[in-house]
């Protein structure tokens, strides 16, 4: 049974790399290019994990995180926040909002996969 | 209380009001006989306006207290 992962990022190249990476690992992948789309797709696609970029148009990653956590239907959802901003305040904020993990870009692909697998275990 | 300029000035205004109440020409108006509340109009006017002025004095003084 393959897990479903939702990629939320507006940088096309990063999306491509993540898509390829995850598909290679055998995950089912869906892509959302902005905050609103994430919430919509979360309902449809019913992912097990979301890779959530913070800087996105319409709704920021933080807002999406809040929204997802507020939704009882997504209680089981794991959220990994991705961002190029690495300040401690941002990290704390993310974790406080309910993210399960917070990874700064550029990330190590190996690291990312290990994290995802451990969260889904 | 009277130390406040405002109170002193208000009281001075009442002074002028009193001068006006208690003298000609208002007196002349009420001096034409006839009665007011069962009393001669001049008497009623003077006693009434006097009491009213006292009331205003009290209001200015006591009203300024905390």
């Amino acid at each position: 049974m393959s897990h479903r992962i939702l990629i939320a990022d507006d940088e096309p190249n990063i999306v491509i790399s993540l898509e390829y990476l995850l598909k290679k690992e055998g995950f089912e992948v869906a892509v959302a290019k902005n905050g609103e789309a994430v919430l919509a797709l979360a309902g449809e696609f019913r992912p097990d994990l979301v890779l959530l970029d913070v800087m996105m148009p319409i709704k920021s990653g933080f807002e999406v995180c809040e929204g997802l956590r507020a939704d009882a239907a997504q209680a089981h959802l794991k959220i990994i926040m991705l961002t190029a901003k690495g300040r401690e305040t941002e990290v704390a904020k993310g974790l406080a909002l309910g993210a399960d993990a917070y990874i700064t870009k550029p990330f190590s692909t190996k690291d990312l996969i290990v994290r995802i697998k451990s969260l889904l275990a | 209380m009277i130390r406040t300029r405002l109170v002193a000035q208000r009281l001075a205004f009442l002074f002028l009001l009193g001068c006006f109440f208690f003298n000609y020409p208002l007196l002349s108006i009420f001096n034409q006989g006839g009665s007011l509340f069962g009393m001669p109009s001049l008497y009623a006017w003077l006693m009434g306006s006097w009491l009213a002025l006292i009331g205003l004095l009290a209001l200015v003084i006591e009203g300024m207290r905390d």
Partner: protein
Amino acid sequence: MLQVWVIVLASFLYLGVLFGIAWYADHRADHGRSLIANPVVYALSLGVYCTTWTFYGSVGRAAANGIGFLPIYLGPTLLFALAGFILYRMIRVAKANRITSIADFVASRYGKSQLLGGLVTVIAVVGVIPYIALQLKAVSNSFTILSSYPEIVMPASAGAVPLFQDSALYVAMILAAFTILFGTRHLDATERHEGMVAAIAVESIVKLVAFLAVGTFVVWGLHGGVADVFARAAEVPEVARRLTRADTSAAYGSWGTLIFLSLFASLLLPRQFQIAVVENVDVKHLDRAVWLFPLYLFLINLFVLPVALAGLLHFPAGTVDADTFVLTLPMAHQQEGLALFVFIGGLSAATGMVIVETIALSTMVCNDLVMPLLLRMRWLGLAEKADLSGLLLEIRRWAIAIILGLGYLYFRVAGEAYALVSIGLISFAAVAQFAPVVIGGLFWKGGTRDGALAGLAIGFVLWAYTLLLPSFAKSGWLPEGFIAHGLFGIELLRPQHLLGLAGLDEITHCLVWSLLANVGAYIGVSLLRVPNAREARQASLFIGGTDLSGHLAWSGSAGVADLLPLASRFLGRERAEDAFMRHARSRGLHSVEELPGDARLVNFAENLLAGAIGSASARAMVSSVVSEEPLGLDEVMNILDEASQVRAYSRELEQKSLELTRATAELRQANERLRELDRMKDDFISTVTHELRTPLTSIRAFSEMLQEDPKTDLEQRSKFLGIIVSETVRLSRLINQILDLAKLESGRAEWTVAAVDVGEVIREAADSLTVLFAEKSVTLDLGGCATGLSVMADRDRLMQVMVNLLSNALKFVPAESGLVKVAARGTISEVRVSVTDNGPGIHVADHEVIFDKFRQGSGNTDVLTDKPQGTGLGLPISRQIVEYFNGRLWVESTPGNGACFIFTLPRHSGDNGPAPLQAGNDNQPGGAQ
């Protein structure tokens, strides 16, 4: 029941109660627990204004004159409305200068003049004697009437009764004894008599209650209420006359005069000044008195007219003196208890007045009249006497006795000529002579001692001539012809028609002349010279509100060894030592001996003595002890100068602190701005980090993936590598732009400035982008570019701007149908270049936002939903460049209508000469190149 002995016993009982209250209050005061430190007590004690004049005389006046009794009470009401300006100031000044009487006030104000003090005392005594006589008359008459019960008999005329059967004499004697016991038991440095004030307050209550009792009895006992009394009065024409006043100007004139007169009398009568000013415990008590005292006056006058009318209705005309209605009406209806109570009320009113008035007068006589005279008579050797306190008390006792004696004398001589009220008005007019010097003293710095003397003297003379002497003449003690024909038979000098002035009642007539002359002389003589040093100093103390108490008027010195015995002489050893001890402690010393013989000590001693013997005498005594170096006008002026310097300095300080506050506000603002800039810097760094890391992420991810799996298929491999390359390029470009921007903003950029042909630059820029335009199939129209437009600029940088604008336009226009138009025009002073596209347009809200670093107008999501391409730095850089050359770069656009970016640069008139104002109709083949 109402036998003589009952009346006498009741009277003595009442006086005994009063005395007991006074004694108890003094006892409490000595132990520091004052009974009278209470605004209600203060207000009630002011009720001493109401004497038998009020108690008996008002009804008499009402019976003759209707409401004409009332103005005497309206005046004080109005005076208290002016409390803030007159009374408050007066009390404050009196306390600050240790004023003990009205004579002291005037003397002190005009340079501590003993002569002035003496004159005021004489006027006060002479003026008030009729008033005292009036009290004696009232008490003795009421006694006679009451003891004739059940018959109602009017007392015989004053002079008719033989001396030793005259109850008035005994009344005078008893009152004298009582007053002496009351007020001269000891000498108080402040001349305050707590016991007296307590007794007076009680006495005010008694007379009010008595009057209200008889009023209630008459209105509801004898009649059916207020309306009934007036209705019945209206029925009888004779009586009905009283319900209105004469509607003549003379009547209104005298009405107004009486209000005005009583306004001053309620402050300037010695007993009023004593109670209101000297005995005042706390100036804050004045607040409540402002309305409580007028209320008291209102209540005690409430029933006057009804009682008068009832009396007129009840007694046949002319049988009963209207002054006695309050007593005779209850008597006529067998109300014995009430009648006795009324008598006690009247006695109370008389006693109160006599006590306070004679004590006040005796103080003045002692301090301002007798002592100065005695001290001047060196042959008496008073200056050497060890203890003068006993002498002072003796003088006062004799003064009380003599004043009462004179009062009785006046009563016998002139008491029949007038009704009670008229006698009182004579006294009012006398003390009214103090008004100019007192009011002037509080508000005008120009008043001098000579002016005061002149004003008082002439006012007094005219008063005596127009009012006092005629009262003697009307009683037969001076030839009648005096009134009718004037002094020495000169018609113009007729005392009540001076210089032929007719048509005024005698009071108004007197006031007109006396006050006119008084004020005229006061002002006129004062203006003859400038106030001298002492007068100026006193004027400042009384008026200016400058507290010169820190500046001592003595520049001489005397030691404790001289000053303490001096004080002891007048205060008694114990009190003097006490006071000096307190002074020493207040200066942080432990014993009186340690006090240095400096000016401060002398000042203290002078103040202390002033409390006992008046400020003028005190000054005289102290100066005899002190080796004084008199202060010249210069020195006083220096002191005053210092005061004004201090004021100027404090004004400066105020201004400086104002500036300081303003500076602080500005600093705070600047700080805010700095903090904001700091925040912006943080934001910038954070954003730059983000922008740099984003391409790095892709580069790393793809590189790792390629590394991980060497067997990735070729298609994927080349795709990935392509991305890596392009992201690297993106990264480098970003880094370059950031550095560029940093250089531009910090001013460290290098510029090569030369004359540049704008048209050429535009064409070059367009050329460099041809391929990209073709790729997207977008049309580039350069038709609107005029030639010969030259600016002074850095060619490369200008290129950078053009490329930026063109590539932006290219980015946002739709493929295939995209159109970008470039136009360049020139005026005499500037060159204007515009780049117009038919893209989605930009919201007005974003017109400035897009020029912010890294901002790409993505805040307005109507137009852009995807992440825009580009770095977000192009426009900020372009703007920096354009503005460096004194140009402007901005955008005009609305959503849906494309965007037009415009920049202007100052035109350079180079070798080409001034460019013609072309409409730019050069026909350059536009269209795709």
